């Protein structure tokens, strides 16, 4: 069975409620936003709608290429997984991702990597996201 991957259906459906971000962060047990691997922001003012930044599950990901300790490994189905023990918190991956889809966990000083679990999809009332 091919691995699941998260997809953006249509950012024009997004109302900017950030429920997906809270869902993503909540998977780790806390509330707030520290652990979110999704980011929603306006396109230069909310009147013009929103942009939703999620991991694209690249087949040839930039983030893994720049990781100096091989803490980011290729994931079956695209994207990467993080081996936190190897990660030295250099932040190169954050800068390498052209979509800006890697975020920073300020508590543990590690990148936040989307696992494509799809938990966020259940909390998007407007069908912006789906898992394939």
């Amino acid at each position: 069975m091919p691995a699941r991957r998260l997809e953006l259906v249509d950012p024009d459906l997004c109302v900017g409620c950030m429920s997906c971000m809270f869902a993503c962060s909540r998977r780790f047990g806390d509330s707030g936003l520290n652990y979110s691997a999704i980011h929603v922001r306006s396109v230069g003012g909310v009147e013009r709608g929103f942009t939703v930044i999620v991991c694209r599950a690249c087949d040839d990901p930039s983030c893994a290429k720049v990781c100096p300790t091989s803490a980011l490994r290729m994931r079956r189905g695209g994207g990467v997984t993080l081996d936190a023990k190897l990660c030295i918190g250099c932040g190169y991956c954050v800068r390498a991702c052209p979509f800006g889809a890697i975020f920073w966990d300020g508590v543990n000083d590690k990148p936040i990597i989307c696992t494509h679990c799809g938990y966020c999809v259940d909390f998007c009332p407007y069908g912006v996201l789906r898992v394939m």
Partner: protein
Amino acid sequence: MPLVDEQLARVLRVDLTNKRYRVERRDDLFSRYLGGTGVAVQLLKENLNPRVDPLSPDNVVVMAVGVLTGVYPAASKLVAMFKSPLTGNLGESHAGGRAALALRMSGFGALVLEGSSETPIYLSVHDGRVEFKDASALWGVRSSLTIGKVLREREPWPGLRSIMRIGRAGERLVRYASVILETYRHFGRLGLGAVWGSKRLKALVIGGRRAVPVADVRGYREIYKQIFEECLRSPSTRKYHELGTAENVMPLNEIGGLPTRNLRSARFEGAELISGERFAKESLARRIACAHCPIACVHIASIREIYPGEKYFYVTRYISYDYEPIYALGSMLGVSEIEGILKLIEQTDILGLDAISSGVALAWATEAFERGVISERETIVRPEWGDWRTYLKMLELIVDQPNDFYGVLAEGTERASERYGCQDCALTFGGNEMPGYHTGPASHIGYLIGLRHSHLDNAGYSLDQRYLGKSYPDPDALVDELVEEESWRQVLTSLVICLFARGVYKPEMISRALKPLGIEIDEEDLRALGREIYREKLDLKIRMGFDPSRLRVPRRIFETPSPQGRIDEGYVMRALDRYRRIAVPPH
């Protein structure tokens, strides 16, 4: 009970005079009052001399969030409390957008603004720091929307911040100036914008991102899901996500409760043309949400205009609409064109004026002009019902204040009518311009005795509608019901729950939602807490000079029939008498 999230108890105190700040821990306040209104009342009591001039450096602004912010959906309001320059009494205003979330994510539960800067400044609050930045070049910029654009480029945390700013109305101390945030949300009522203006505070940008610990993860996830689903499915929130509050126009008009032309009538022949249905069909462009609220009640319309000097050159602008501005800048002024209402709303946003107070002030001016109480010497232009182009100019004149008349009108309808006359047609309650419900005695009694002076602090209009066609309660019972409901709402606003979600957050639900956060409080204790906060707030109001025996009731409300028939003056007086006995118990 100690707070699981210690950062909530951090109160950021900013001294605008000396450009200094410090952080105080107030676990006592947050664990007792849960946040928002309850905490803000105490911080104001501690820090504000109740007798100060609201536009002096001695006024203090408190902003607070609650234990549920960033934790559960729709706990999305930032509560601001200050002494109002419009009423000279307690000012409490709530704003949505990202303001509440941004404050909590920046690592604070409350913010206290004190003193006054000599030169215009703006504040940037992030990563636990406050930066005081020069805003001299931003002062006087024509549109508040430009200020938003400029700061968006200069400040950190896109998507996770709030950009609050005043317009020229705030700079020029119009006593019903607003603070605008995220383009479409406001601290609208009671003149917070003028208080900021008097402190030369042009803007406040705040943002951040952090984890909020919970005590019981499994319980938290379960109750979260339930609240989330109820926000979306509950019949009590349905109208907010579909047509939005603009849905009210038609039913209110049908029962005869839609204030029209300065409440000379409560039915508007143009109602259908400015109904929620019409707005949706002709101009709804997008719906958006406040941070952490799936309801998405913010309705944004577009208007497309051609540039007169250039062929094939169009501009599309976006303006948000709601029931209250449609009433205040629509039916109240006899405006039945959507385009006109949208442009008036846009103008109040550009200038930074409260839409409700502005509309009611213009309605008073129009009637006073018609009656010959004032003339073109005062008004400069000729106000006429429905003529929104002239009203657009008058809004500018309120801000520019080119003569004495506009100088006084900028102080509010109450003062303008004291000076120029036509007091019976000045629709103010406790000095504040009325919201859009002439549904019966309860709505007006609610405006008079409400502790926040918005429309949602009291249940007046909904009681009127509930008793429609049924036997209306006697004045004592009605007042008791209003006070009890408003006491409960102190709990909601201490938790900074948007009152649109009040049908989801019932006492039982709140008690269950607090448990995974390590807070054990049952329904009865929650209600008792509401009564305590009500009493504390009323006490603060009385210290600020609120005297329930000196409330002026505008004659007009007795002249224009309501859905409950003609409102009986004796009934209202008996109700106020009851309230006096509750508010000022004999010593």
